[in-house]
């Protein structure tokens, strides 16, 4: 199926849900939806566009807002679903009910960006250590790594 046809179908199926639709490259389609339309849009992609495969979720810190891009792939195209949530109220809905394989990526978003994924089946940390302090979210732009001062046990003060 050529890209242009997919774009037309997406326009029809998503209707007003699609805030922006672009096709910057061959087999690359970007769709922007509002936060509340995320789960319905993912369901439409899975059921009508053969996008049961979610490659990953990318998070982006854009200052006032966080942007999340859900990279879906079907055998004919790579459809990227984009949504934004305000930094002051970082909450998104979990899509694990639609795509069970999304749980690892959602756990990563929680710890790296400090966003609350509502309804996630497993809210634990994914990569960060157990003794990582609360409220530190490494992939936010304002987070800087400060190397802790090395203390040699039994060394000179």
């Amino acid at each position: 199926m050529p890209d242009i046809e997919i774009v037309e179908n997406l326009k029809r199926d998503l209707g007003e849900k699609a805030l922006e639709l672009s096709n910057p490259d061959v087999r690359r389609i970007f769709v922007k939806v509002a936060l509340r339309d995320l789960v319905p849009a993912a369901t439409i992609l899975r059921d009508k566009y053969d996008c049961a495969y979610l490659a990953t979720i990318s998070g982006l810190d854009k200052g006032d807002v966080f942007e999340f891009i859900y990279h879906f792939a079907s055998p004919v195209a790579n459809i990227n679903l984009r949504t934004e949530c305000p930094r002051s109220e970082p909450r998104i809905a979990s899509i694990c009910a639609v795509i069970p394989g999304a749980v690892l990526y959602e756990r990563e978003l929680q710890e790296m960006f400090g966003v609350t994924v509502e309804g996630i089946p497993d809210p634990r940390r994914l990569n960060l250590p157990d003794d990582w302090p609360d409220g530190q979210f490494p992939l936010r732009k304002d987070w800087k790594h400060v190397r802790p001062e090395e203390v040699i046990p039994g060394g000179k003060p």
Partner: protein
Amino acid sequence: MSFEIPIGPQHPALKEPISLRMTVEGEVITGVDIRLGYNHRGMEKLAEEKSWLQNIYVTERICGICSHSHATCYVQGVEKLMELAPPKRGLYIRYLVSELERIHSHLLWLGVAGHEAGFDSFFMYTWRDREVVMDLLEMISGNRVHYAINTLGGVRRDLDAGQIAKILEGIVTLRKRSEYYFYIGANEPSFVARIAGVGYLSKENALALCAVGPVARASGVARDVRKEDPYAVYGDLDFAIATADSCDVLGRVVVRVKELLESYKICEQILKSLPAGDIAVKAPRKAKPGEVVSRYEAPRGENIHYIKANGTDKPERLKVRAPTLANYPATVEMLRKGFIADIPLIFAAIDPCICCAERTVTLVSAGSGAESVVRMSDLRRRAIARHRNAPVKRNAVWPL
């Protein structure tokens, strides 16, 4: 009574050190929990502080076995952002190295699968073969592991006629040996019986859990980025997607065997139609603001990089998803209802790095909390002993 067995985090069975907690009842695994992050290196954050060129070398060090995969995935994305068109000869050399890397990774994996199943001559044969392709890679790039052949706008080293002849010669040898050893595999019923039916992953689960690469293809999901999203040279090449329907470790062996033969074919096509000309174009220092999704079929499955540029000489964001991460939910599913004795084999079926070392596994009694430490070699010995007396599965056949 159920026990919990922690495996790892110091465990090179998977690419990154990973901690698995298995709940077992008797010999049967009833629950698996995966904990990651023991060796989390923060590369995505680091990439935001390095220039476009430096990041090639950062991404190359994400993985040791498929080092070329991440670097290529990154480079082809950045080339799109910079609107560079690498010369055809450069692209052909780049993807020749990709296919050679796939061959060495799959041969390594086949040896590991043989070793874990207690078929050590298979392991020694395939690893001897692997030296042929490692020597070829060393001849092309100067290195056995981190080839560093990619640069923005092409590759760093050219091939001459003598090298091309040597690679073709090597591929002929490899193909002949592969076919012979696979014949041996087919005629060893105990090997086939050991791996058939182990680590079952149904097609529905493979789809739902977003499995990638040979794991998905062995469950009948024909998912291969080289076909679905033919990047760079793959549109011009003739090859087939290898799949199997048995959904078990045997299927994963068969898929990789078939992929080896396809890769030999691809290498020969690339070398026979290698165009003349330059190997690289000059790349600018900065990239215009923009974003790109770059996909690449690594030996273990789809590799995806999301790259965003902000107009400076450094990326705004580089998101990396390695194929092993995508296969973790499927791994949990495969291990469930399996046997303790099958853990090494199912591990090996996902990722080849189990060959690295003899590992320590701690058995913790859930009731008393008492721990007993066994080495991975003992676990393997138990596995072999358990299956020595098992009846040969009469209906298991080598499907090649």
